[in-house]
């Protein structure tokens, strides 16, 4: 491409008009291949110099040239786009500096222009998709640095006052048979969500391996993400409001079945009655009564456990802004999981929630496992399920 520069210089020295045709002629005479994109860019430059115009809009010919150059030099696709976004923003900001202009708006319009140029991004090959960590509050493009999964460059794609936290990735999901590798990925995912939260306040965390890939269309992948933000803006905004300033806490309550059964034998009228009838029966008959007793105990146990569940759950609800009931795992003989609840709670509520749980934990035969704060994964999954399909 230096050749084009030399050719232009030669034309200038020779006093010939410096234009596309002449440069091409010189290059042909010299037997050098013509880099059309570079030639286009040079033409733009010369035209600008000649007309003396100081227009700041970015010509697509320049963009195309820069993109292909940078890609050939193995500059990462993400960086190329960043550079272009910055260039585009610079060129379109005709408003005086300092005048409030929604950053999201600037980004959106300029990128629209860019993605209109179809061939440009076809060259980017890899990095056609976006791995989304979550959606955060804030309408700016922010560089988080190389903190992503496998040290990818993490940045935000804004729409209005929310932004998606992403890195540029191939379309294949992250998959590995190696547990350690997966663990490192998930940990990185978690750390990015935390970093975004620290910086922007509220983050809707998305689950690991949420990847948005553009369909067969030629739209810029950042634009695809922005379209999604636009499309789901209302529901995303609603979730954002709901989780703002709140964290998720996991609560699991376990009981000792022996303690529950002891309570039933003590309290249940029916059970006591069967026990009395059983006494002094012949072996076969006693066996039948034992079955009857077992059945009665089982149904009383179910009733009692259900009551306890409702009671505990209501108490947790009182100290939470929202709750989601999780699946209970089957317990062993010693302890059985009674309930598994995810609570969304503001910081000021956590203490009272903790006190309530301590009370339950102190009850004989019951124990509570309390964990958190976590990003509110359990409170966003349902609403955002459609993303996964893309």
């Amino acid at each position, binding site marked *: 491409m230096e050749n084009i520069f030399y050719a232009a210089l030669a034309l200038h020295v020779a006093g010939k008009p410096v234009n596309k045709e002449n440069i091409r002629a010189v290059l042909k005479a010299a037997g050098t291949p013509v880099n059309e994109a570079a030639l286009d860019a040079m033409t733009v430059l010369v035209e600008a110099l000649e007309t003396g115009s100081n227009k700041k809009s970015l010509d697509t010919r320049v963009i195309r040239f820069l993109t292909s150059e940078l890609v050939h030099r193995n500059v990462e696709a993400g960086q190329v786009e960043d550079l272009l976004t910055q260039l585009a923003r610079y060129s379109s900001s005709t408003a005086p500096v300092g005048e409030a202009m929604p950053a999201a708006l600037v980004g959106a319009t300029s990128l629209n222009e860019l993605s209109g140029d179809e061939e440009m991004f076809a060259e980017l090959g890899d990095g056609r998709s976006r791995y989304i960590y979550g959606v955060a509050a804030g309408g700016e493009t922010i560089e988080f640095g190389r903190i992503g999964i496998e040290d990818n460059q993490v940045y935000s794609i804004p729409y209005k006052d929310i932004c998606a936290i992403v890195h540029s990735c191939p379309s294949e999901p992250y998959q590995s048979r190696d547990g350690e590798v997966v663990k490192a990925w998930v940990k990185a995912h978690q750390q990015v969500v935390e970093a975004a939260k620290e910086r922007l306040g509220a983050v809707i965390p998305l689950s690991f391996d949420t990847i948005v890939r553009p369909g067969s269309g030629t739209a810029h992948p950042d634009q695809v993400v922005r379209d999604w933000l636009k499309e789901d803006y209302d529901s995303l905004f609603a979730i954002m409001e709901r989780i703002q300033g709140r964290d998720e806490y996991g609560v699991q309550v376990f009981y000792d079945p022996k303690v529950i059964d002891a309570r039933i034998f003590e309290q249940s009228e029916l059970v006591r009655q069967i026990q009395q009838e059983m006494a002094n029966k*012949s*072996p*076969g*008959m*006693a*066996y*039948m009564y034992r*079955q*009857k007793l077992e*059945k009665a105990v089982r149904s009383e146990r179910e009733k009692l456990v259900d009551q306890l569940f409702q009671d505990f759950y209501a108490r947790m609800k009182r100290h939470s802004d929202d709750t989601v009931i999780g699946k209970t795992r*089957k317990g062993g003989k010693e302890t059985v999981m009674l309930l598994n609840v995810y609570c969304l709670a503001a910081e000021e509520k956590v203490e009272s929630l903790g006190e309530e749980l301590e009370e339950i934990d102190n009850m004989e035969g019951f124990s509570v496992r309390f964990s958190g704060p976590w990003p509110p994964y359990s409170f966003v999954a349902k609403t955002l*399920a459609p993303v*996964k*399909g893309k």
Partner: protein
Amino acid sequence: MSVAVEIKENDLKQGVLGLVVALVEIIRDTLKVQALKRMESGSLTEAECERLGETLMKLDIALEQIKEELAITESVQAVRDGLDDLVTEAVDKLVNPEAWRRQVKEQTT
């Protein structure tokens, strides 16, 4: 990728026996439920109840012995737990058809 499955004869035996005994246990359980129902409805005489109870009791003892002798207590429990999970899942779906519909949709898209 092909996976070579190596079946040890002993494992296979245990698995099959576990399955058979688990099925017998389930049949016994339903028999118990039926016996209890009849007894409570009053359609059985005292002597019939006695005989039924004794038979079921002997079946219980026999099954426990078999399990112990063949060392299949665990594999029987595993089969029953597996069936339990299956039933729980099915009931879950019937109780909450909306979640089921969503799940199916997710899997097919």
